[in-house]
């Protein structure tokens, strides 16, 4: 997986990221996984699916699941703002390359973060579940958070797999313990 290879904020050099706003938070996603940014399109609801990934969109003839990072990141879910966008990302799902979309209230810019500026999320004082945060960094006078996308999707898929194969005994719950 592309993302996990530089999980630890060590090493020198700079990291290309795209910054976005989700609710009140500033997030940064590695630019290398970003395929494109779309204006909001018609979303097809998937009945029975989780809130995290409750819709499908058509991205140039490909059907792409649309995920809402506010669900795993414990953020309040309000209507998306007028500048809302969909970020189309290349992310592995269950070990295979896949395309997923995530929603954002606004997309700002592609920029660079010094690797030295990346810090582990503090154990206390943040409202994000720490297992889903890859790092935080100061950028332009504010704090941006790099969500750990592989972890978020892996945990979600493990949860789905657990609920699917309940014929073979109690499924291992992949649900993380909230701190």
């Amino acid at each position, binding site marked *: 997986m592309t993302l996990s290879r530089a999980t630890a904020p060590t090493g020198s050099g700079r990291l290309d990221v795209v910054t976005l706003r989700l609710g009140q938070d500033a997030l940064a996603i590695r630019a290398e996984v970003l395929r494109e940014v779309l204006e909001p399109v*018609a979303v*097809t*609801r*998937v*009945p*029975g*699916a*989780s*809130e*995290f*990934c409750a819709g*499908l*969109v*058509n991205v140039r*003839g*490909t*059907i*792409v*699941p649309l*995920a809402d990072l506010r*669900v*795993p990141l*414990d953020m309040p879910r309000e209507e998306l703002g007028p500048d809302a966008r969909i970020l189309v990302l290349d992310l592995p*799902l*269950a070990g*295979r390359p*896949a395309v*997923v979309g995530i929603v954002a209230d606004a997309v700002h810019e592609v920029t660079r973060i010094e690797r030295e500026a990346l810090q582990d999320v503090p154990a206390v004082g943040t409202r994000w*579940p720490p*297992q*889903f945060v890859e790092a935080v960094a100061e950028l332009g006078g504010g704090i941006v958070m790099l969500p750990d996308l592989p972890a*978020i*999707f892996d*945990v*979600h*898929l493990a*949860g*789905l*797999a*657990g*609920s*699917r*194969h309940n*014929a*073979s*005994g109690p499924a291992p*719950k*992949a*649900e*993380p313990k909230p701190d």
Partner: protein
Amino acid sequence: MDEETLAIFQAEADSLVESLEAGLLALQDRPGDRALIDQVFRDLHTLKGTGGMFGFTELAGFVHGFESAFESLRSGASLATPSLVAVSLKAHDHIVALLAGEAPQGAETLLAELAAAVSGAVGPDAEPKQDLWEEDLPVLNAPSMAAPPVPPPTQPMPAAAEPVTPQAHPAAPSVQAAAVAAQPATPVARSEGVSAPAGGLIRIAASRLDEMMDRVGELVIAEARLAEIAAQSGLPALVSVTEDIQRLATGMRDAAMSIRMTPLSSITGRFRRLVHDLSAQLGKPIDLAIVGEETELDKTVVEQLAEPLMHLIRNAADHGFEDAETRVRLSKPATGRLTLTARHSGTEVLIELADDGKGLDAARIRAKAIERGLLAPNAEIAPADLLRLIFAPGFSTAEKLTEVSGRGVGMDVVRRTVTDLRGRIDLSSEPGQGTRVTLRLPLTLAIIDGLLVEVGGERFIIPLAAVEEIVELADRTAGSEGSSRLLNIRGRLVPYQALRDLLATPGDPGPFQKVVIVTAGESRMGLVVDRIIGSNQTVIKQLSPLHSGLKTFSGATILGDGSVALILEISGFSVPAKIAFPTESRRAEVPA
């Protein structure tokens, strides 16, 4: 020799040995069948020829000896005795090992055994004819041959051109195997396009076929968009040309799809071999009957089915059948009967493996399940659900591991493969009478005819193959209460449910609701929708792993206006009592 040439040789050799094996196995049942003997001989001969041509001298030498032994059989003076077939199969395995680049031992011994088996079958004076490299060619070209002649082994093969003989073609082994293995009543498995005359066959990479399928899918979507525009414009010329394009696209779709369809017979050859070997290994006489080999499934489905079916057969042979003495004591025929049946049923393909062995031991499964903690000691469980526990990972009631089975891995593989193919497994067993495992698989075609319906402003596709009829819902309040009700369809009661309840659709039902009567497996049910939009060609796009666990949808498609619509999986609705969407529990699993 470059890699490409080597690949051509490998593909060819693989199909030849497969055909050879099928022929040998069939010889067991019909030892005097001339056509069969000729076919085996042809396979050997072509193998020798291509092997020699590509520099596999050891292979060519061995096959030459093999062929010599068969020469006396072909001359008609002898019969294929079981012992000869057994040795021949061993020789076949030796060839497979040689082709795999291994260095198997015992070539001399095998050839000696072959010669002995032949002379035992014929009598001392019929010495195998030696040195057939050149002189048998005229014989092969004799008019009595059933199939076109084999090219002389010395003829250089153009690298790009495809081989012209049926045996040398990758599509052909299945055809040949089917033709040879099928009962005399059905001499050739005439599946369209596959068993065309030899000259009409070409070999295509599967990836190109997939690419073509993608293009056809896009064409169908574009065509739907065009149709919408044409309908809005009202221009007669545009409408007429759109209709033409629609007709052509439908034809394209059907043609492209039929190319992907493969008869089950393409994998049954190895089952015959497996049963033959298991029968010998376990000392239990077992007969395998295959019904409906010509049933066609999508290529990928057929390929994925081979492994689980092997496991099921192995399991039936090892655990299912009593030994011959016990069977006789129970006044059953000494030979166990294993039947593999394939047939279409609505939108599903049913593949059934039935044995007439001792049946599953419910008490032992229960005891084992409790021991493994899968079941509470005093749990009440429906008989069918209890039997289903054999598909749990690592579950085995075998007291001892045998070489054949008992590790409890096989049934788990079966379950996983069938689940991945979005299929289901039914299991029934009668003590003393045998066990029947039914795999229900969706047709999983890339494109289906769909019925586009609307529920609460959202659009869904119902596979048209599952739709029986559409009726008006007379009592318009009836659909909104979530309870399952009954509809009288020409004297038969059909339960119906509101799709808006099943799909947790927001909003109120429309004023003119319709009921779509669908069949799933053996049962019928009605689904209440707000509006029928019409039928269309639906390109199935698989759902990502994020949604593929949902039993109620088989995929999604892109409609003419570019929006996405989900395709309902009717069998996911077939058990009305259990359809509650696990929205709440699912939600709990999302880390929040």
